[in-house]
């Protein structure tokens, strides 16, 4: 079964710490220490009697950091084969913990996703991420695995959907959507563009159709489509002509018949599509067929999703609107984002100085030590600090991808990519949220936000990647 197990483990265990990727480890330590620094700023209380009291959030976080250090060392000392061996049991335990939380857990902020042990709260979803990543690596590294084969697609779909549906039942959809990051892994593993492109396209259409009017969406699509065709076939004049004809035709039709602009555009585009299809088959320019199909799909999908959306109950509509950030929700997340933007914007290039942020010190940004920790960075260290943090994350993600590439066996590669993808999604959504370009989904900034579960889970995630990489790097001729 372990066909790639041709290297004596002994050889590696002896030189273990010599083989760990020092760049990844360094980036990890830098981010974690920066996180502790800003949690300190966010929860610093000048009136507190003792700076080192364990009642302070930063002291709790420092303690978790210690725990993480110990766990990291243990992970690095483990035999890499254990991860392969225990992928399936870990997944089963992970799912079990999620179900247990759903049944016996504690409800926090409306999500029944927590366990409580004497003052400490643990969120099993964080560990489910590790389990799912290991399981995914396990499934996808199977000898007979072919990502574009339906049975295998169903397998990996099931690996994701099982934890996802439990997390949704816990009313913690935001955390569950993190599992969408695996799409990134699938693309690396060669998922056909005929599968992933429609998925991405559908997601984008769905979100944009809630934010923009159909007229805007179709005008944009039309321009993008023409641009694509122009890039493939040249002939600037012809494409401009086509675009102008469709748009002017729609305008004219709308003016003459006093039809809605959107309906007029749909009619004119339908005619244009028929003409185009005729052209495609006559001249055998089949490369255009694929975009035309996507376009027709959009023409059906957007009105259909609009129609379906209008059939939903108002509170459901509201929940979806809130989710994509169109309206403020009852928890007033819009206020949080506004205050966070003010904090970061007012930080300027160099920031207001450590512990000097007024938005931070006077508690204007809610959840500033957890989900909105980035606002403290932006306010107190300005653009320079924010840029440093973003660059550190991007570097760590790129490093993980590179480690994945240089691990020859697919288990390690899939695993490293999974970690990189989850980090990317967290960073993108969390930082995007604090600067107002992403909806509020309630997911933390990995390694920086206050919270033991998240810190420990991401530490384990990354350490396993480093461990897997260390096992193979020595005799891996591949250099990237």
């Amino acid at each position: 079964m372990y066909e790639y197990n041709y290297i004596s483990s002994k050889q590696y265990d002896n030189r273990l710490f010599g083989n760990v990727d020092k760049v990844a480890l360094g980036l990890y330590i830098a981010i974690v220490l920066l996180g502790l620094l800003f949690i300190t700023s966010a929860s610093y209380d000048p009136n507190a009697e003792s700076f080192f009291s364990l009642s302070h959030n930063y002291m709790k976080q420092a303690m978790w950091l210690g725990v993480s250090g110990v766990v990291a060392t243990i992970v690095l000392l483990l035999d890499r084969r254990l991860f392969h061996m225990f992928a399936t049991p870990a997944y089963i335990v992970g799912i079990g913990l999620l179900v247990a939380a759903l049944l016996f857990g504690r409800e926090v902020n409306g999500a029944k996703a927590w366990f409580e042990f004497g003052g400490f709260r643990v969120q099993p979803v964080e560990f489910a991420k590790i389990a799912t990543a290991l399981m995914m690596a396990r499934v996808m590294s199977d000898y007979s695995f072919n990502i574009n084969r339906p049975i295998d697609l169903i397998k990996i779909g099931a690996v994701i959907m099982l934890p996802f549906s439990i997390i949704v039942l816990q009313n913690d959809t935001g955390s569950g959507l993190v599992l969408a990051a695996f799409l990134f892994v699938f693309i690396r593993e060669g998922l056909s563009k005929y599968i992933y492109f429609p998925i991405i396209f559908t997601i984008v259409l769905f979100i944009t159709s809630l934010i923009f009017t159909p007229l805007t969406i179709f005008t944009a699509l039309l321009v993008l489509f023409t641009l694509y065709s122009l890039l493939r076939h040249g002939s600037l004049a012809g494409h401009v002509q086509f675009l102008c004809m469709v748009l002017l035709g729609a305008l004219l039709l709308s003016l003459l018949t006093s039809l809605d602009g959107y309906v007029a555009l749909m009619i004119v585009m339908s005619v244009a599509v028929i003409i185009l299809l005729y052209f495609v088959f006559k001249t055998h320019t089949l490369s255009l067929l694929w975009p035309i199909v996507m376009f027709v799909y959009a023409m059906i999908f957007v009105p259909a999703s609009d129609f379906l959306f209008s059939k939903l109950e108002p509170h459901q509509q509201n929940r979806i609107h809130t989710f994509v950030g169109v309206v403020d929700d009852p928890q007033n997340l819009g206020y949080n984002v506004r205050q966070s933007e003010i904090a970061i914007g007012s930080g300027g290039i160099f920031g207001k100085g450590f512990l000097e942020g007024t938005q931070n010190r006077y508690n204007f940004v809610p959840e500033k030590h957890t989900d909105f920790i980035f606002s403290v960075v932006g306010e107190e260290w300005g653009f320079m600090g924010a840029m440093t943090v973003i660059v550190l994350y991007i570097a760590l993600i790129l490093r993980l991808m590179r480690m994945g590439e240089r691990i020859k066996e697919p288990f390690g590669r899939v695993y490293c990519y999974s970690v990189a993808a989850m980090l990317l999604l967290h960073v993108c959504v969390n930082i995007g949220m604090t600067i107002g370009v992403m909806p509020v989904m309630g997911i933390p900034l990995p390694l920086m936000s206050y919270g033991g579960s998240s810190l420990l889970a991401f530490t384990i995630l990354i350490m396993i990647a480093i461990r897997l990489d260390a096992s193979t790097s020595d005799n891996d001729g591949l250099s990237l």
Partner: protein
Amino acid sequence: MGNSAKLRYNVLRIVVIGVGVVLLGRLLWMQFNAEEYREMARGNSIKEIVEYPMRGEILDRNGEYIVKSRVCYDVMVVYNELPDEGFDTTRLISILDISREKLDRELRKASDNRSAQTLIVGYLTQDNKLRLDEQNIPGIYTRFRTAREYPRKVGGNLLGYVSEVKEEDIKADSYYTAGDYKGSNGLESAYEELLRGKKGVSYYITNSHHANLGAYNNGNNDIPPQRGLTLTSTIDIRLQEFAEDLMEGKVGSIVAIEPATGEILAMVSSPSYNPDLLVGRQRGNNYMEMFHDQRQPLFNRSAKAKYPPGSTFKLVQGLIALEEGVLSPSTKYPCHEGYRYGGRTMKCHAHSSPLDLRDAVAHSCNAYFCYVFKDMITNSKYGSVKEGVRVWNDYVYSFGFGRQLGTDLYGEGEGYVPTPEFYDSRYNGRWNWGTVLSCSIGQGEMGCTPLQMANLAAIIANRGYYYTPHLIKAIEGRDSIDRRFYERHYTMVDSVNFVPIVEGMWRSVNVSGTSRGAYLEGWDVCGKTGTAQSSSKTPDHSTFLSFAPKNNPKIAISVYVEYGGFGSTIAVPIASLIEEMYLTDTITRPHLIERVKNFKPNYGYYDRKQRNYDAKRNKQ
């Protein structure tokens, strides 16, 4: 790694870097607007409190307080910030001294606009404010105010009151914001800009729970409030109190002026009211009660009422005729209880006949001044009666009648002087000297404010000029008051022509005449009574115009008592007592005070009006 794998790796790397670039781009864009965000961050964490100044106080001419300011507080609530778990309302209503119903009502009102400060109750004393602070209820705030206090409790209409600004006030003057207070009526309004002082502002640091975390920048940016200026009034508050007391139960007005300066010594509009009634929590009720009173205690008669001047106006007629040369002091006219013209008679009372100008003034002969006025306006040098009236108009205006005098009082009335145009339109152009003859004795269409009449007394005392009457003589920190109060206004009559008129007024008091009751040993009082007809059904108005002493006059006074009867009946003793009080500081005739106080004019007119008004109100 195969080619396609390498391609995918590179594309995904670009995606990762792209995410970083998008985030950094957005951060940079926010950077371009850093100033805007900083402004918002400051707005979040630095709050300003308006610091209200003490309102300026007013002293009388002898340095006694007329109007004082005392510290009090408005109690405000922000509904949103009230503790969710509730608070001790029993204690609160005991501190605020309000009923539970009132508190519930105000809290309900506050819940309409949950995040705004809403007034619960005003006029919290300083002690109770400290007790309230001890309770430390979140969402309950106090706002510094000053409330007015009136040691002598007199001068309601004269002083005006302080009330909350209306929307139009805020629009007209950006100094005000909703909930501010401003002077209404009287001196409070006329000197509002000096009395109100200047609001200050202080900045403090706050957190998301609106808690005050101490001064911003150690208070260096704060602007302290500037208290309002202290004004010194021309009023002699003891005289004012005495005069108001004499007018108790009567409707009418008293104005006393120092002729040499135009300073108003006392200004009574009766019925008056205790200005304290318009301060405090009962203010609204008290105001409405006075508002519905048909004797109109809120109406400042002394500056606004339009009364027929009656016989006191004969003085003006005599002066004009002398100046125009149609009369000489020695001219005598007969009077047999009236003046007959065109089948009509202008009645007069019994006195010796014929009389010269002095005695005509002293005895207030109606017939004499009918001759005088007819001779004046029908004089051939004017060409027509119309032109004669026009010349007469100009003279009358020069005495300050028919127009505002330009005092520093809010809402001064103009009175009325009939013009040829007025008669033309009323009589379709068909009128002659006989039509307007009633003007000769200050009846008919003539209307004067008591202030204008007192000013006439001052003009005669000065023998031909006046200073614009005013109520404020000094402003804290300023060398002078408005320059218009230092200007002499000459009438069109030469001072020489005042001599026989003054002589007649002196004789009226000191030798024989209608004003004998105003005699004061050693003070050479001069006076002229008036008995103004109001209508055939009601008693006449009693009026008296006087100054003393004859040379270097110190006080000029006009007393007007509505429906008081003959001038000598009530106006003369009131004026005389006030003159005595002012000149000698003592009262030698306490029986006269008794008489004045016991005198009750017949106010059937007002009583009927009140009954009708109440009946109408009750119906509605």
